């Protein structure tokens, strides 16, 4: 081996050669001023890069980011609260419908009859009859309309919150 490749010199610099290979490189480098010059240059580059100054951010980036994080946390809380409110309204609405249906059933139920299979069938018939009459009722349309409107409004605010939250970091 009379000459050494750049890769070999770099590996020597990084200490990635075996003991024998390193000794061989040193021997060849010592006998060649040109290679010695190259190795010296590489060593200087390595030293300079290791001691390269780290630039500092010109403004108080920590405060700016922490301020944004505060906002994110506040938005998260608001979002949670919003979802809880929407869920509560939805559950209350469902509960009200169930209670109303239950109330109507109890009102139409005959307490004097004994609990036989025929009574149960009659009870089921009463229930289906009530549901059918309720579904045909115009009130159902109004209720559905109000419900859909509520859902639409909720979806709009939810989307808006998500958008603000997403864009906060930008």
């Amino acid at each position: 081996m009379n000459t050494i490749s750049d890769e070999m010199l770099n590996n020597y610099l990084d200490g990635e050669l075996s003991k024998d290979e390193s000794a061989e490189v040193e021997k060849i480098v010592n006998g060649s001023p040109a290679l010695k010059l190259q190795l010296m240059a590489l060593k200087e580059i390595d030293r300079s890069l290791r001691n390269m100054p780290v630039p500092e951010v010109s403004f108080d980036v920590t405060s700016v980011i922490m301020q944004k994080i505060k906002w994110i946390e506040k938005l998260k809380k608001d979002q949670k609260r919003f979802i809880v409110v929407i869920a509560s309204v939805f559950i209350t609405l469902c509960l009200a419908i169930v209670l109303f249906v239950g109330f109507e059933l109890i009102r139409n139920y005959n307490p004097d009859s004994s609990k036989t299979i025929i009574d149960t069938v009659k009870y089921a018939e009463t229930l289906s009859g009530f549901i059918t009459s309720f579904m045909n009722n115009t009130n159902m349309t109004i209720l559905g309309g109000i419900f859909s409107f509520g859902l639409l409004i909720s979806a709009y605010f939810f989307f808006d919150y998500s958008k603000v939250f997403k864009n906060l970091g930008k």
Partner: protein
Amino acid sequence: MKDISDSEIIESVKNGNHSDYSLLIDRYKNRAFSMLKKMLRNEMDAEEVLQDSFLKAYSGLKNFREEAKFSTWFYRIVYNTALTRISAKRRQTENEMSSIDDLPELKSNDDYESSEKKDVSKFISDTIEQLPPKYASVINLYYIDGMSCEEVSDVMNISVPNVKVILHRSRNALKDLLIERDYVKEIL
């Protein structure tokens, strides 16, 4: 504060002490900024991407499982956010960085000071500003952050041999320039 490990800070933030995240910001902001400045070559862009990266890391902290070091995970976010910014600004840069066979010839900026030579270190730090983003990142992660080639490969999602090739090529390009500009005689 220096004694607190990254894991302890992360644990504290996960437990609801959001203000402790500022310790991580203080710990990594300058080194991440150094990398971004070299990649983006624009201080304002670097500052914006730095903020984005910290916010992304904060949002993803709950999913951080500590299988990797926080620094590796965070620098991956920084690197990817910078790449997104670069490709958004200049689509062709994407192609520029997709290969490692494209180290442009480095040029010395010494023309304006022909009568007075710079200090070698200054000359080197000025010249590496010309490196393409991928090369600049490898140099920064390896030298400024003191990462191993394996860690750099983890951050940049490239193979370890590729990291070494980039490292060697960057040093060789600088070496040729130093010899060409007669800086080595000063060292000797």
